[in-house]
């Protein structure tokens, strides 16, 4: 398209944006609502993943030693576990240390332990994993391997929580794409209808442009450009709404995150996610306009309304 034609298209877009400003705003607002829901799921997913990651750093496997493991064998056992590729750090909790920790934990009620032998609690290894190996399956595999060794009486790790949080993240991801997809589809048709209305409002102009030899591309270009602008405005509005939601819920975060709240700080969308919301709006506007235009022009011509 030449410079003169580009200028012509931009002038038509400017004039249409002003003349049909309420209709354009309504379409952009509809797109903003769709993109807001999509972005809200993305925000939730990002924070859950962040939470899981933060919590994952705290995940430890506790391997309780069998009674028959002697104190002299413990350093070798410690070294062997430390050498495992998944393991970042191992700490030996002796029976004496376990007793003291338990006493501290009971606080004022520590007298409950009076009369019990001091070796009632087993010695254990607290195993921290390397960041790359903190996924649920790796934790499970390592725990199973340690359980198979005769030196360990039992092996514990917060399996249920790891799996549950992982499932929640997966469910949010699915919901984001499923609900997001449905909303996108609905918005796509709303955009198409808005373009159809804009087209009808300007059919005299389009007919005259066709009569004087304007190409189809030139006739369609302003509508597609308007769709793109609506999409970008809708995307920007939705990011602003998401920011508002983020600020409002930030004070509620400790309640929402429960015991895990101290582990993480709430996160807003990163720049890639914001770009995804804006590009989605842009694409939604362009695709909705193009789809509607092609169908509408075909019908319009077939019914003899256009030259």
């Amino acid at each position, binding site marked *: 398209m030449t410079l*003169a034609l580009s200028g012509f298209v931009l002038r038509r877009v400017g004039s249409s944006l002003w003349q049909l400003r309420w209709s354009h705003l309504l379409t952009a607002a509809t797109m903003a609502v769709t993109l807001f829901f999509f972005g809200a799921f993305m925000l939730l997913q990002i924070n859950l993943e962040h939470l899981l990651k933060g919590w994952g750093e705290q995940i430890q496997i506790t391997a309780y030693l069998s009674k028959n493991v002697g104190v002299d064998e413990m350093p070798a056992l410690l070294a062997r576990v430390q050498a495992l590729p998944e393991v970042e750090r191992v700490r030996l909790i002796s029976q004496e240390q376990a007793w003291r920790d338990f006493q501290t934990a009971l606080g004022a009620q520590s007298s409950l332990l009076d009369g019990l032998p001091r070796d009632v609690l087993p010695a254990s290894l607290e195993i921290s994993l390397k960041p790359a190996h903190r996924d649920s399956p790796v934790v499970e595999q390592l725990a199973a391997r340690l359980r198979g060794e005769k030196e360990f009486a039992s092996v514990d790790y917060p399996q249920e929580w790891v799996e549950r949080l992982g499932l929640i993240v997966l469910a949010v991801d699915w919901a984001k794409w499923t609900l997001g997809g449905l909303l996108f589809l609905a918005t796509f048709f709303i955009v198409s209808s808005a373009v159809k209305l804009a087209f009808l409002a300007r059919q005299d102009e389009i007919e005259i442009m066709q009569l*004087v030899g*304007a*190409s189809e591309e030139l006739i369609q270009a302003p509508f597609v450009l308007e769709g793109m602008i609506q999409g970008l405005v809708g995307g920007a509005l939705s990011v602003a709404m998401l920011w508002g939601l983020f600020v409002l819920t930030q004070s509620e975060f400790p309640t929402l995150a429960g015991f895990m709240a101290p582990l993480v700080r709430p996160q807003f969308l990163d720049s890639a996610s914001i770009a995804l919301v804006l590009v989605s709006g842009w694409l939604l506007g362009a695709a909705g306009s193009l789809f509607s235009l092609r169908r509408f022009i075909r019908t319009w011509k077939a019914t003899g309304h256009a030259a």
Partner: protein
Amino acid sequence: MIEFHHVSKTYGPALRALDDITLEIRKGELVFLAGASGAGKSTLLKLIFRDQEPSAGQILIDGKNVTRLRSRGVAALRRRIGLVFQQFKLLADLTALENVALAAEVIGVAKKASRTKAYHLLRELGLHERYDAKPLTLSAGEQQRVAIARALINDPILILADEPTGNLDAETAHETMRLLLKARDHGATVVIATHDTAMVNRYGDRVISLRRGEIADDLRRAESSGAVA
């Protein structure tokens, strides 16, 4: 310039708007298509500027077959044709100048050049003082002159006018005809569909009469007598 070879146009199985038309219009001719309403005058014009496709036959313009053009080809064809309608077809929210310039702008002429040329044309047609008036504030005659200026702005080789004087009083109708004659004198071929016999008798170089989709008569004005014969 324009050749019709056995051209027919039907709308559904029952309505035959044009039936086996064969004719030739030479470059620089001013031709009237005469006939009653429904005779096929407007359909014939619409086939030339490819608003419609013929059901059978071939149409050549400047030797080029325009019967089955795609949209890009249709747009290119129309850039060489100036169209004038009974209803003027002006955009109400644009000024007279903008309406005329629009036809040049959509084919890629820069805004300033388009508007300068539009202004010169309006001046030639005596409308330069009303260049910034919106169509609804102009009289019917003035609106038709704006439409003619728009038809002329791209220096067309062919002007097609469908009942151009249908909404005008006698004086304004004659003024409109004089403008179309002037365009013919500048080398354009002009084809006018009308049922105004007074206009046909006064201005027609050649009159093709249509009746029920067929050519009933094709008469040329005898140069010596000035009468259509």
